[in-house]
Structures are given as C-alpha cells and as structure tokens.
C-alpha cells in the first residue's frame, strides 16, 4: 500500500514532456540504461530506449545529453521552521532549497512552535505546502503531546490526516513505558515511529563527541553510549511490541552493530544517517566552528567510516540531510552555547556523490538510500523510475564541479558545514509531478 499526498494530487504539469537521450537509473530495480522518459499528466507514462526525440510526438522535448535521470530525492528529515521559526526557514524557502538540490519530497519534523501534535497542525502544514511549496511536503507528527514524552498523541487521527510518521523531535522519549505504548499503538495503524537517539542525562552538558578532541578544546563531550543506550532499549521494545521502528539518525559504529543485529533477528527496524555523519567528523570542528555543531554530534573518523560501510552494505537504509536552518543569532556564539544543526538540502546530493567519486559507495546504492528506500519506509509512491510512477525526477550531472557559496543558498539560513566546499555533481533539472521546479541553467 502506498499513500499519495492528500492535497497535492492536482499539481502536475498539464502538457507532455519527453526527456530523451538520458542515462536512466531506477535504484529500485538496478535499471541503468540509455533511453528516455515520457511524462504525461504528472506521471511517467512511458520509459525506455524507445522514447526519443523522433517518437516524442507533440511532447516538449528535453535533451538530457546522456546525463543521469533518476527519481527525485526523498529527504526524510527536514526541520523546516514553519510554524514558529519562519525567520529561519519557511516551507516555501525549504522547498526551493530542496528543488535546487534535486529533492522532490521532504518530511518536515514536528518540533515546531506550536508542536505538530494535533490534526489541525497536520492540516496546516499540508495546506501551507500546497499553497507555497515547490516540492512534496509530508509532516511528521509528534508521538507525544508537546513532545513532552508523557502522553501519546492521537496517532490514529493524525495518521489519517496525513502524518507520514511519528517522532519526538530532537529529544529521546525517556519513559520506556510510554515508548512501549507508542510502538504498540502505532502498530495497529501501520504507523512508523522515528526516534532521536540521545539519553539526555548521559549526554547532559555534552556539546560534541566525547574524546580527545573535546578534551583539547575544553568542551564537554557526549559519549556514543548516550546514543546506543536508547537504541538498545528501543529494540527491546520493538521485540516486545512488533511496532515499526526507524532510528532517525545513527552516528557511530556501535549503533550500526546494534541495528545489524536487530535486522538479523528479523525485527521491523531500519535506520538513517545524515549526510554530515557520512562526510564529516569531529576534527572538522577545528577552532570552535559552530556550523559543525549538531545532534547527534559529529563523531570520530572510525565512526564516520562505519557509517559509510553501513551504507555500502545496505544496513543503513536512508540518507537524510537533517536540514536544520539556524540564524546568526543561534550560531555566532561560543561553541557550548551555539545552536545545533546544519542546513543540507542543497548540498545533500553533491556531498553524497563524494562517496561515489571516492569509490566508497556504488552509485546505485547511494541513490537507493536517497530515493526508493525512504519511499518504501514512508509508504510513498515516489522514489521509482518506472512506468506509472509519479514524475518526481532529477536530472543529475555526476561530474559538474561547483563550490558551495553560503550566500547563494536558497535556504533562508546559511549555516552550512560545506561552506566553500568543492563538490562534484549536482542536480540540473528537478521535476515534481511533471512540473519543472528547478533549472540549474537559469
């Protein structure tokens, strides 16, 4: 069963488009061949070598010049800022950033102000997205009221209203009994629980990864055990309840081992990793650079390598941007007092392609974690390059070099850890339901 966006069904482009002379990649099937795609009424009407400029008929023809045509990226973790923090980001600006990054679907997190813990707020997000956003937006709802970790939200009603999953923002649910009940109750609706992993008392005043680097900087560290303790507990509760569970972001080798063991036992457990934890480590903090402050914190190089290995082996299911816009008021502070988080929608693809260019992860695997895997996890129709699939597409130049210029980012906030980074590969064209929402050439 897949779910279509409740409000977005009529937003497709009306005329036919033929994308010809492309390298078609469908990460779900491993399809990788030359050909074209015909888009009619917002869906992929036909696909394959037979779609050429000559066979396109009346359709508008776009010559892809041999570049990769893939399903649009699905980003399962975006902190959009709306409602409550519109000065940092709105759904409109986040969606423009997404489109420019080849991301056609974003899941926005519930830790807004007010918290998305009520049907009316789910509806608000969907309507704001319909009216202002360029890409598909799905709200994640809070699993406890006010994210306080005490009372369960109306999971059934929120699910019906369009909440794509349930999370607890940037905090872990401390009470194991509430967590058990949430997992058990959500299971009845087939709803997915996405959890943040951080034992608050153990992490306490930790502001970066615990270890030599933190000690040299005189900063309090947060040990990886603060992550693994919650993950271990949650997996015991999944065992108890059978609820569908997704660890939103893991950041260390030990967590990967725990997820592997859970999967080997056949439990309904999946996990994600942020692009930051795949490409950066604690040393990047250097002289107290607050743009590298995030939750979970950047870990050691060994942990980063474990994340790459887990992605390559398929044990890590999903890559997220963990896009979290923060203004100067949050970041221009002493490190310990600075806000957590980094923007990432526009750099997600380029940074991920580093792993491909380095030979660390195959292109197909990388795109799986960015498209079909999150689609399956979230029971979305997209993430496929196949006949009948929504025409949410990205045309990728795998080799195009570019330099990240914070001022050029479409996001309202410029807190990118890839400031001045040289990336190789980027989105050239992005389509959502057959409508062109981003054109690099413009």
């Amino acid at each position: 069963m897949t779910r279509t966006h409740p409000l977005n069904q009529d937003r497709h482009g009306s005329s036919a488009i033929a994308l010809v002379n492309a390298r078609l990649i469908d990460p779900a099937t491993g399809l990788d061949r030359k050909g074209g795609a015909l888009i009619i009424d917002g869906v992929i009407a036909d696909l394959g070598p037979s779609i050429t400029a000559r066979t396109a008929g009346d359709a508008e023809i776009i010559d892809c010049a041999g570049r990769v045509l893939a399903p649009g990226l699905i980003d399962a973790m975006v902190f959009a800022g709306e409602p409550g923090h519109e000065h940092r980001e709105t759904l409109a600006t986040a969606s423009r950033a997404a489109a420019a990054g080849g991301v056609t679907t974003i899941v926005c997190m519930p830790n807004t102000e007010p918290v998305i813990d009520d049907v009316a707020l789910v509806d608000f997000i969907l309507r704001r997205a319909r009216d202002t956003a360029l890409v598909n937006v799905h709200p994640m709802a809070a699993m406890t009221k006010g994210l306080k970790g005490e009372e369960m939200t109306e999971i059934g009603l929120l699910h019906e209203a369009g909440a794509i999953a349930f999370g607890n923002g940037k905090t872990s649910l401390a009470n194991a009994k509430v967590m058990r009940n949430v997992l058990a109750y959500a299971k009845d609706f087939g709803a997915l629980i996405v959890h943040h992993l951080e034992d608050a008392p153990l992490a306490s005043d930790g502001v970066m990864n615990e270890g030599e680097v933190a000690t040299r900087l005189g900063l309090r560290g947060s040990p990886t055990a603060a992550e693994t303790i919650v993950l271990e507990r949650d997996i015991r509760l999944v065992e108890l309840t059978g609820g569908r569970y997704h660890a939103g972001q893991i950041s260390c080798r030990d967590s990967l081992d725990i997820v592997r063991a859970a999967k080997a036992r056949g439990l309904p457990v999946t996990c994600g990793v942020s692009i930051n934890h795949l490409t950066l480590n604690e040393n990047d903090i250097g002289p107290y650079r607050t743009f590298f402050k995030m939750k979970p914190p950047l870990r050691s190089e060994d942990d980063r390598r474990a994340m790459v290995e887990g992605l390559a082996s398929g044990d890590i299911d999903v890559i997220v941007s963990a896009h979290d816009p923060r203004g100067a008021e949050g970041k221009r502070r002493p490190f310990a007092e600075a806000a957590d988080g980094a923007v990432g929608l526009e750099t997600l693809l380029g940074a991920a392609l580093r792993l491909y260019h380095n030979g660390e992860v195959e292109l197909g695997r990388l795109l799986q974690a960015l498209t079909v895997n999150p689609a399956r996890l979230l029971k979305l129709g997209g993430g496929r390059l196949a006949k009948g699939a929504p025409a949410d597409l990205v045309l990728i130049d795998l080799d195009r070099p570019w330099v990240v210029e914070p001022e050029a980012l479409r996001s309202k906030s410029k807190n990118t850890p890839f400031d001045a980074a040289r990336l190789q590969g980027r989105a050239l064209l992005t389509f959502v339901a057959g409508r062109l929402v981003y054109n690099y050439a413009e």
Partner: protein
Amino acid sequence: MSIAAETSHPSFPHRHLLGIEGLSRGELVSLLDLSEEASKLSRQIAKKRDDLRGRTLINLFFEASTRTQSSFELAGKRLGADVMNMSVGTSSVQKGETLIDTAVTLNAMRPDILVVRHYAAGAVELLAQKVDCSVINAGDGSHEHPTQALLDALTIRRHKGRIEGLIVAICGDILHSRVARSNILCLNALGARVRVVAPSTLLAAGIERLGVEVYTSMWEGLADADIVMMLRLQRERMTSSLVPSQREYFHFFGLDYDKLARAKPDALVMHPGPMNRGVEIDSNVADDARSVIREQVEMGVAVRMAVLQALARQLPNR
C-alpha cells in the same frame, strides 16, 4: 637550538595570546626569560616602566576573578598603560550574541589590549576574531589559561633551575580545569614528565592522548614527584555526583603530609588559588615551607607584565 641562543633573541611574533597550544618551546622560554626580568622590576622601589605608555588595556571579565584581574591590572599599570576594568556578570549577560556585541562596542573605544576571561571555551578566540586589538586569554571555560601555566612554569624554574625532566603531578579536577590543560601543554613543551592524578569521574576523556601519565591514586601518582600541583575542587562537583563528599575527597585526593611524603623530599607544593583548605589541600601543607603558593601570585604579575611587553612589541605604530 640552545637555551642561551633562545634567550639572547627573545621573540614572540604573535598578535594575541589565546593559549599555550601552538606556542613553540623557544617562545615559551623567551616569555619566561622576560618574566624573570619583570619580576626583578616588581621588587624594586620604582616599579614603573613606560612600555605601554599611552596604551589602553581593558580587563573584560565575564566570570568573577580577584587575583587574575588584579594581577593584570597591576601589570598593566606598572608598564604605564591606562587600565580599565569591566566585569560583566553572567546573570546580567544575555548570553552569546552579547559577547560579540560587547566585543564590537569595546573595539569602537579603540583599546590596544583586551584581557578577557569568559566561562565558555573558545569564547576568547571568538572575540579575538571580532576586534582589531591584541587579546589575552585570561581563562576560557575549561579550555586554557595560558598566563597561569606560564607563571607556574616560572615558579618551578626559579626553584628547580630547570623544567626538563622534572616529574610534575597535577592533581584534582582535571575534567573542568583550564589550568590543567594549559599546564599540560606548557610543561610538556618544556620537557617535563607530566602526570595527572584524579578520580576517574574528574578525568577528561582521552586525556592520555595529551601526553600525560594518568593515575587514580595519589599514593601512586605522587611517588617521586618533583612538583605537586593541586587544583581547586568546586563544591558543585559534589552535588553533580562526580565525587560523593568533601571528606571522602579529602581522604583520597586531598594533599596532606602522608600523601606528600610520597613525593621527593624537596618537592614543591603549588596551587593556582583560590584554595579550599581542608578540601583539596591540608591547611598546614598549604603553609608549609615547601609551598610556593604565594610566590605563584608574585610571579603572576611578572608573567603578565612580560606577556604585555611581548604583545606591545607587535602593536601597530611602533
């Protein structure tokens, strides 16, 4: 390079003093030599020089401090600077952005040297990025307190004639101590063998990677030590379950004559102050002939004069 050669060409080619990290052995030695000279000046009747005449020094303290602030004030005045003290109480600070706002505001008053203490690690460095003048770190969170490390090294050198090869045991709250970090870096650079002695709850993760031997027993850690350097234990460590009680801490980690007997007979006892008598140090030990705690304070003024002189040479328009 010989020590003599370094001494005859004192050099400190830096605009700021933000930490011991990054300073070479030669630079540290030249600062110590300069401090030695300054200490002689302080013992004269006429203590004034004019190295900083016409210059403005601002003491900007975001954290209360009596001795460091007065030490810098005196050092500045002895060198002829105009000194202004600004204490910014933590409660009155709208944290964070105010730091940069304060920096920009102060910068507009065109000081030549800013001496800054702040409760957050890295805050002094952040501030230094925003101002045009020289900045001296007078302590930033648990990160560094470079002038304390220099005055400790100077005190040791005056008594032992050297630092190289000495066994220095730094004891107590290593986890929260900027004094410990700066001393580890400084004494290691000068060739000492540095030990840290603390309960595991007060050791920082990966501290051994800074080039120290780690002990959790005073009896072992003080064995044959030339220098016993005690750190202050703040009372809130008891309420945050890092140590169970004052009396237990004193029993195992307080410096008394029993434990001191493990060190060399001529070992020096040091403490950066302010002391908690009966918590980390026995009152009689603190006043013992082997204690150089008061001399540390005296050397504090000398070291700060030396640092000010060294930075003054780098100031523009000279």
